[in-house]
């Protein structure tokens, strides 16, 4: 069953404080968080979080289209390396 709408999105409380603190300081830092279950809110867009996957912190740069998803979706706990082949990365 889906979560009741009247409750609003789930969020561990400390994340908002951490995000506000980071925004006000204006420093480019990675916010280490363990809360994979928290929903990504519009306030987080533009910030980079380090989302713990049980081993290390995976950098997650929050963009518009990630709103409503959970942090854990972007920090897999099992890593498949695969082949480099013809894969490319663009520097943002």
């Amino acid at each position, binding site marked *: 069953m889906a979560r009741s709408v009247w409750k609003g999105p789930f969020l561990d409380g400390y994340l908002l404080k951490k995000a506000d603190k980071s925004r006000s300081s204006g420093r480019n*830092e*990675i916010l280490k968080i363990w809360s994979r279950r928290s929903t990504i809110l519009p306030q987080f867009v533009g910030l980079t979080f380090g989302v713990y996957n049980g081993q290390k912190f995976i950098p997650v740069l929050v963009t518009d289209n990630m709103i409503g998803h959970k942090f854990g979706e*972007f920090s897999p706990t099992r890593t498949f390396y695969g082949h480099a*082949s*013809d894969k490319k*990365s663009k*520097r943002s």
Partner: protein
Amino acid sequence: MRICVGQILGAHGVRGLVKLASFTEDPEAISHYGDLTDQAGTRTFPVELVGSNKGHWIARIDKVDDRDAAQALGGTRLFVDRAALPPPDEDEFYHADLIGLRAELADGTVLGTVAAMHNFGAGDIVELALPSGKRPLLPFDRETVPEIDPAAGRIVVDPPPGLLDEAKSGDVQP
């Protein structure tokens, strides 16, 4: 430099067709880079894709006409020359060009090497291999990776504070 783009998995049917795994970003691109070779580059495999089945390609290889010949190729990894890949756009890099580069700080201190590139849906990530055995992950952006010089075999990284030393004493889960 040769880049592995696929692997022959085994025979398909009795007419010399083979099952082919493609490692390229677009699976069909395995047939776009010209003739494929083995790792040493001594044997060439002109491949023609004839269909797909259960997540892999069915392909015909020139001069492979029966099942025994197709089965004998099972496990062969297929390579293309790096020069056969089209040039990337500006600020775009092939993973094959980045992996293995030396990662240095701006002052020239060597941190380690580039071990892998990832993208888990939230931007590209560089994985470094440090001599200590740690493998920190850094965002692949201009602030964190200001300089990339594949010709010189190095990238310059400026890791955000606290990212490299992951187990700091004051860093606790709330």
